[in-house]
């Protein structure tokens, strides 16, 4: 059963048509990957799902309910967690406080069960020993961890990760993949945007490829990476 469906989404900024017709459906407990070149509109898609801005037309259906027009904070309370591509932790607070404020707001209201306590989240995101350092003093990967921790603290049913693994080295990527799988196992639906194909191939149940305003391919990572259009538009043809 799809927990999130995006139907016939259209969106343009000024004269820049980002989406001409996007359809995506994500099932519960899936890890769903979204790929596409820079500027394909992946982040924009997340922004629309989260209610940061509305589409020009189309529908976003979450748990059977059209959520367009809802305020971002309402959606967060309905169980949509989100990480930003450009990290935006609350700089003046510590990681623990970042998570706490999320728990106190979205976490309290969200229908999802409290899967992790804040301490567990700190463990999961490797922030245990840094949890009392102000976030602005942390390194970039740690800031990304703070983002993840904050999203998890919302007690989400579905989490949107926007390139949370970029800039990580091999081992760290492994750890991140393990984390994603753990979340999926715990019953959280995960949507990831990544440029690292290994990552996508390894963890995703399904992948959608955005290109020039439409979904040019959708399916298992394997199928998608064989798709001619995808190779042409995104992966690049030379290697094949």
């Amino acid at each position, binding site marked *: 059963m799809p927990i999130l469906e995006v139907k016939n989404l259209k969106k343009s900024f000024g004269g820049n048509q980002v989406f001409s017709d996007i359809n995506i459906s994500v099932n519960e407990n899936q890890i769903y990957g979204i790929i596409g070149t820079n500027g394909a509109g992946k982040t924009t898609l997340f922004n629309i799902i989260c209610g940061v801005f509305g589409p020009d037309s189309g529908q976003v259906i979450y748990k059977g309910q059209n959520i367009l027009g809802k305020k971002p904070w309402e959606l*967060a309370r309905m169980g949509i967690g989100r990480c930003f591509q450009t990290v*935006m932790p609350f700089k003046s607070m510590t990681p623990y406080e970042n998570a706490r404020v999320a728990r106190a*707001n979205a976490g309290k209201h969200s229908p999802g069960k409290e899967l992790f306590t804040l301490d567990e989240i700190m463990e999961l995101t490797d922030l245990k020993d840094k949890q009392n350092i102000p976030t602005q003093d942390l390194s970039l990967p740690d800031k990304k961890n703070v983002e993840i921790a904050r999203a998890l603290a919302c007690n989400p049913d579905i989490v949107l990760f926007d390139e949370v693994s970029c800039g990580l080295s091999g081992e760290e990527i492994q750890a991140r993949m393990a984390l994603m799988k753990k979340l999926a196992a715990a019953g959280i639906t995960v949507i990831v945007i990544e440029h690292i194909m290994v990552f996508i191939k390894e963890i995703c149940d399904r992948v959608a490829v955005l290109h020039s305003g439409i979904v040019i391919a959708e399916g298992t990572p394997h199928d998608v990476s064989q798709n001619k259009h995808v190779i042409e538009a995104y992966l690049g043809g030379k290697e094949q």
Partner: protein
Amino acid sequence: MDKKWLIGAGLAVAAYIIFMFSTEGGFAANFIAYICLFVIAGQGWNLLGGYIGEISFGHAVFFGIGAYTVGLPIGYGYDLPLFMLVICGALLAGLFALILSYPLLRVQGFPFLVGTFGLGVVMHSIFVNNKALFATRGIFLKSYDKYLLYIIIIVATAAVILFVKWLTEQNIGLSFKAVRDVPIAAQMVGIDIYRTKATALVIGAILTGLSGGLYALYSSFVHPATTFETSISIFILLGPYIGGIGTVLGAAIGSVIVILFQEFSRSVVTISGGHHLLLGLLLVTVMMTSREGIYPGLRKLIMKRLKVKPINKN
């Protein structure tokens, strides 16, 4: 952390009281009470200005409402328990803030500043023009045992500082900071920005109203010009600004410094306008040397002395 705060505040209160009784003539006491009132109001302002990041130029409105709630019944001859009136005044100020939050919080930044300034002008006009509100005449209250009042004011100040400190460490306080730091991310963790801002405004208004009510008792006189005046708004906000907005202690220290500085410079420079010049220069200097204010600036300086290493990215 909390304990340290309690002890510190307790010590400060004790020091105040000792200081107060040790100086003859009571000027110091009076002065301290006056400073304390601005500290309270400054804390109220700081909730919005420092934690949410919206400068208000109209907090005198809440100050005035607090004072008038104490003054008006007395002006009309009702003999109500005063401290109840003070509390009511604070709550009324909060209610007023709640109503006002609707138009005001729709804008941010400079328009907000001008809007709140305008609000102050409107309230001042209304009170100064309305005979039913004892316009221009003012209301005289009975005078109360001054020493009792001083102690109450000082205790209230300590309580307010502790309360604000406590509040900002609660979830709601964290939400304030979240809204200030990254509004968009704050929404993503389920924070209703409008409500959070309104909460800060209302709690801040309550504190400022409390300060106004106490001021009415302390000066036993309520007059539009001593309550709704823009200069009151300005002195309320200057404290946190100079001390360090968004920090409880900084705001308190700032209020003390501003009032002290003002009176000090008034005594030192007799030439008319001289103390304005000093205040202006102080403001420019503080802003140019440490943007965040005296207290965070100092703290940073000390921190730098202690450990110099910047944290590496890796």
